[in-house]
């Protein structure tokens, strides 16, 4: 839908403010201009667009988002201490309203050959190394909007053969000062040949204002590199959260994208992984929780471009209240990609009659010697299991809570990072009713 004149003016003003900064490379200026032209021409996606059939973004299009407040976020190191990861210590880059905040960040020594810093710093010179990542085709209008308006994010480069022992945390805080604001975080993660690194992206909303968080993360894994990426989305209850994660994998590389989505009134998360070298392996593993009127959409594409790749995709959702979960799992196996082994499973647990889930596997197979499976389920708790637990003296609400927990924990157990896994389990428990009694089943009796 074409933007109304008023909105058009607003986005042009925002563009001039964001892109007008000094010292930015000319190639970026050009890419931003192109993105702006496309966005102003096409506007936000409409429901009749196939990729947006189940997710209506009119609420975003209609809202007057403003650039976030500059300096009055009131954040202090002691104030954000509780938001930092308690375990899995490592570097923590904190971004408040889209801007890097060195004063809030925790910096620790990294092995030689690792560069970690803010993207705006990396772009203050020529930033030529970043050109390929910015040049990737945009996933959708929101990715264009990000390119057009992005100010900052993280840039991580891990050199050939370097293993980064501690995970790197990127914490994005949105604290909107009462008015709806928008931020467009942009991250670039490059893992050199044979390197190994884990990155945790976490989004947390500190205000109730209906902000728009519109992030793009680009990842490249060179030959035999291993990258584990976590995405924890806990934006405020009135926020809109749009995310795009794009990975391009080299030969023999391993990429895992874990996600846990439990915030925002509307969230849409696109993951696009291209297995662009032989024997690449990809894992997408995500959990989403919905309650109230929440709408949560995961839109994934795994593109097997070369032979002998393997992909595993596991998404589960628990939907309560009048929430709605959407999952699209597209798997492409190109003609060259013989001996591909791709498996996909999406399961949705409905805790209320008004909750809804749409699950759409989409396999496009152009090679003949491949193994591809997919499965999708949508349904309530198995009453047989509920009765089994009750017949052992466990009250009904605990039995239901425990079964829901176990359903979701199947995703969280694949989180290899113990601190993130435990924190996620806590968040899940906090979301479920009767968490105290569920805990009894989890405490280790030794």
């Amino acid at each position, binding site marked *: 839908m074409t933007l109304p004149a008023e909105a058009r003016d607003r986005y042009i003003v925002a563009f001039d403010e964001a892109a007008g900064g000094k010292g930015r490379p000319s190639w970026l200026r050009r890419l931003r201009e192109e993105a702006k032209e496309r966005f102003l021409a096409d506007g936000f996606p409409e429901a009749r667009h196939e990729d947006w059939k189940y997710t209506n973004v009119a609420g975003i299009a209609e809202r007057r988002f403003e650039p976030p407040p500059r300096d009055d976020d009131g954040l202090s190191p002691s104030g954000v201490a509780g938001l930092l990861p308690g375990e899995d210590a490592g570097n923590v880059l904190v971004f408040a309203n889209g801007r890097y905040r060195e004063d809030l960040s925790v910096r620790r020594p990294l092995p030689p050959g690792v560069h970690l810093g803010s993207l705006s710093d990396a772009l203050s010179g020529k930033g030529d190394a970043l050109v390929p990542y910015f040049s990737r085709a945009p996933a959708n209008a929101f990715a264009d909007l990000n390119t057009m308006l992005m100010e900052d994010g993280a840039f991580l480069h891990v050199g050939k053969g370097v293993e980064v022992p501690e995970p790197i945390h990127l914490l994005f805080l949105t604290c909107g000062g009462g008015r709806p604001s928008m931020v467009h975080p942009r991250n670039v993660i490059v893992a050199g040949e044979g390197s190994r690194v884990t990155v945790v992206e976490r989004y947390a909303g500190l205000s109730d204002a209906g902000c728009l968080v519109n992030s793009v993360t680009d990842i490249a894994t060179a030959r035999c590199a291993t990258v584990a990426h976590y995405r924890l989305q806990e934006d405020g209850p009135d926020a809109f959260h749009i995310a795009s994660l794009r990975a391009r994998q080299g030969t023999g590389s391993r990429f895992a994208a874990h996600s846990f989505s439990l915030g925002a009134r509307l969230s849409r998360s696109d993951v696009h992984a291209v297995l662009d070298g032989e024997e690449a392996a990809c894992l997408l593993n995500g959990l989403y929780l919905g309650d109230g009127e929440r709408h949560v959409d995961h839109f994934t594409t795994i593109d097997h471009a070369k032979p002998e790749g393997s992909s595993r995709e596991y998404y589960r959702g628990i939907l309560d209240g009048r929430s709605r979960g959407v999952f699209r799992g597209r798997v492409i196996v190109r003609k060259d990609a013989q001996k591909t082994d791709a498996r996909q499973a999406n399961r949705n647990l409905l805790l209320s009659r008004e909750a809804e889930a749409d699950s759409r596997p989409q396999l496009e197979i152009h090679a003949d010697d491949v193994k591809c499976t997919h499965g999708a389920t949508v349904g309530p708790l198995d009453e047989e299991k509920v009765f089994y637990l009750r*017949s052992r003296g466990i*009250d009904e609400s605990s039995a239901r809570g425990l079964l829901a927990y176990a359903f979701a924990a199947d995703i969280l157990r694949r989180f290899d990072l113990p601190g993130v896994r435990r924190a996620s389990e806590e968040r899940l428990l906090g979301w479920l009713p009767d968490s105290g009694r569920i805990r009894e*089943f989890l405490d280790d009796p*030794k």
Partner: protein
Amino acid sequence: MRNGNPMLSVENLHAAIGEKPILRGVDLAVRAGEVHAVMGPNGSGKSTLANVIAGREEYRVTAGSVLYEGGDLLAMPPEERAKEGIFLAFQNPVEIPGVSNLYFLKAALNAVRKHRGLQELDVVEFRDTVLERLRRVEMGEDLLRRAVNDGFSGGEKKRNEILQMAVLEPRLAILDETDSGLDIDALKAVSAGVNAFRGPERAIVVVTHYQRLLNYIVPDFVHVLVDGRIVRSGGRELALELEERGYGWVQAPGADGGGEARL
């Protein structure tokens, strides 16, 4: 031999699944210390009887009453029945991925103990209790570390049921076709677990299609359930007679003592 009030008293029990009547007037009285066998052909309502006593809500009681320790059992939710000492060993134990067998046992035991006014067991006491019971059913310790019944063989699931029974120490245990799908070793182990559990304060109802299990768990009473009614009751010799002559014998109209039998 049959002194005192029954622990369980089933009177004129009618039950249906949806609109389909399954039980059509069952009478059964079970006293502490007794072992009863309920036998019958497939579809006779044996499992329905077991499940109604345990409180399964899909089975609708349409008439009759069930008293347990003098109280109205049918008014209690399943978890209350469990806490009051009723245990159903499932015919098809449910797999619950993601819930550790050991933690599940501990939570179930603590729920029951709390209800009985007993202190919750500490970890050492709990572990000792479980390991001791585990040996009785000849079950591998590794099964405790796995999720409840998840990927267990048929025999392992049945042993796990008897282990739960041995740990929870119910007053009334109902074994729903616990023998189905068991090889002879598993059958012996399961039976040993049940026999160790027998005692003057406890009662057991064994629901089975075959006489075989009753060679190992010797009942005091045998009842034959056909078409939703108990058509014949007797001692253990009734089971042997059934084995020899088949269910057709009690089902046939005019058969000896089978005045209530229908076909």
